[in-house]
């Protein structure tokens, strides 16, 4: 049953939101202890919300296009009065006094938020092992990581605890866990979804996006959360795109570029899956060309200077003065130091220092300045490619899910998981991961579709075709 169908059933009174929510909460209670996808389950709030949906239905009102559908929020999304910690000790116990714009939109659509999901602390990581509250396990193989930083949101959907969840993607943090867990994950065009209420990691790269088990469900959720927001100065001027209506448009005549630079360094089975995906497209009438965009290789270095630089500034506010944890000391500066030293994990500290260094006097031009120019170079390279093709196809991430603990001591090795996803964030372009195949140990393999800015309609159409031809 699609989420659209579920909402129809609830709106018609055929099913009650309460019953659906209770079932969801029961599944979470049974299945989550071994996975730890959730950091907070909002039993009372969710049931209250479900009851209000049922009451609205009884009054003959329309509670919204996703009425009664349960959903999980990544723990970096502000929800008024609910715990929001970004999986960090420094925000332990914090309850924001306001809702993120996406949370308000979800409420208007009748969604029942059931809880907050685990993540890498402040969205910094690719495995959810950097959470201050313990890692999340991959539902397909609990000895392995679900990916990150939105590992909890991916796992919650992959384990069928909830049909929908929201994550955030700065360098691949939706797409990579989607690929590792075998679900659909979308990073929209930068500015399509409001960032108001998303706790910032790297402001010029962050975007909120959907996780779902099907392309159609992801499309509906993205429609609900998109659209111009006057509270976000970087929000695109237009309203939400129409995606659901175009899912079945087909790919006849579409030019798809198989990007060889998004295959380099990937495991054989991953490359094999991507090539088979190309064949599926060809079989449906798309034109496949192999295309090289060598500039994309520089994305990793540019990203690991730009993102930490912005993060170092965005995370300065966690100083123990106004909210969150405080470690007392004799003077305010010592208090700042003690609070931040105790409150932040290693990866966060590493990136804050890296970013501070990249921005510091004497190094700005060589690091930050150079990275910003490299970013332009990559954007121009993408523009040239999209002069020849309509979409790009490649791997989402070089490997299937790795074992817990395998990369945690080697930051550089961990960063390499993002090499295929980072370029889209730098360019502000939309991209999505579609579950397509299984690897040697039955582990999920996702393939990545990339498009130019504002090309979500085309992306979802192509994704629908891939989904139909998938063997996962």
């Amino acid at each position, binding site marked *: 049953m699609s989420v659209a169908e579920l909402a129809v059933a609830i709106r018609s009174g055929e099913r009650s939101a309460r019953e659906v929510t209770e079932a969801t909460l029961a599944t979470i209670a049974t299945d989550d202890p071994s996975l730890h996808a959730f950091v907070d389950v909002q039993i009372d709030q969710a049931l209250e919300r479900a009851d209000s949906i049922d009451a609205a239905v009884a009054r003959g009102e329309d509670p919204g296009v996703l009425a009664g559908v349960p959903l999980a929020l990544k723990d970096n999304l502000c929800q008024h009065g609910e715990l929001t910690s970004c999986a960090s000790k420094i925000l332990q116990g914090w309850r924001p006094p306001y809702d993120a714009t996406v949370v308000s939109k979800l409420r208007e659509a009748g969604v029942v938020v059931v809880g907050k999901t685990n993540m890498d602390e402040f969205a910094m990581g690719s495995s959810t092992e950097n959470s201050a509250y313990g890692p999340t396990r991959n539902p397909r193989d609990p000895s392995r990581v679900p990916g990150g930083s939105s590992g909890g949101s991916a796992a919650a959907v992959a384990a069928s605890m909830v049909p929908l969840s929201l994550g955030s993607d700065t360098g691949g943090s939706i797409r990579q866990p989607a690929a590792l867990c075998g679900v659909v994950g979308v990073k929209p065009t930068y500015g399509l979804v409001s960032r108001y209420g998303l706790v910032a990691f790297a402001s010029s790269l962050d975007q909120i996006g959907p996780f779902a088990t099907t392309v159609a469900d992801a499309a509906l959720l993205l429609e609900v959360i998109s659209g111009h927001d006057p509270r976000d*100065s970087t929000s695109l001027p237009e309203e939400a795109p129409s995606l659901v209506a175009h899912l079945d448009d087909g790919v006849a005549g579409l030019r798809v570029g198989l990007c060889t630079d998004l295959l380099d360094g990937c495991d054989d089975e991953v490359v094999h899956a991507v090539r088979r995906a190309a064949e599926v497209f060809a079989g449906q009438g798309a034109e496949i060309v192999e295309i090289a965009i060598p500039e994309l290789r520089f994305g990793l*270095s540019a990203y690991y*200077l730009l993102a930490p630089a912005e993060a170092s500034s965005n995370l300065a506010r966690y100083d123990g*003065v106004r909210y969150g944890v405080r470690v007392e000391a004799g003077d*305010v500066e010592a*208090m700042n130091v003690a609070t931040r030293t105790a409150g932040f994990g290693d990866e966060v500290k590493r990136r804050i220092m*890296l970013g501070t260094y990249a921005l510091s006097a004497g190094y700005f031009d060589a690091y930050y300045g*150079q990275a910003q120019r490299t970013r332009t170079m990559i954007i*121009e390279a993408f523009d040239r490619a999209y002069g020849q093709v309509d979409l790009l196809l490649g791997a989402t991430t070089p490997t299937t899910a790795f074992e817990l603990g395998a990369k945690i001591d080697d930051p*550089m090795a961990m960063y390499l998981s993002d090499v295929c996803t980072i370029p889209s964030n730098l360019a502000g372009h939309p991209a999505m991961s579609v579950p397509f195949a299984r690897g040697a140990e039955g582990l999920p393999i996702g393939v990545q579709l990339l498009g130019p800015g504002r090309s979500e309609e085309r992306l979802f159409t192509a994704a629908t075709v891939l989904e139909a031809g998938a063997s996962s």
Partner: protein
Amino acid sequence: MAELEPISADEVRHVARLARLELSDDEVKRFTSQLGSILGHAADIAALDVAAIPPTAHPFGLVNVLRADVVTASLDRSEVLSQAPKVVEQRFGVPRIAGEAP
């Protein structure tokens, strides 16, 4: 893997101070090596000739996003202060401030 360490332990300590972080000697050592490895990887873009390319601050060319000068509702003070580590006379209490603002 990069052999060179483009960042020194002193620089790591300096940057930690700027960022209001305190590191143990062990951590200084470990972070110096890790940061060095990451910065070493960035040598690939250091070598790029991109001087003539303008930097990108934003992916799309939005300009002039403004709002009208009209008052909107503020937050409930008690709700905000309820999240504060220390409240003194309806204000946020902090320990002694050693220096003046820059």
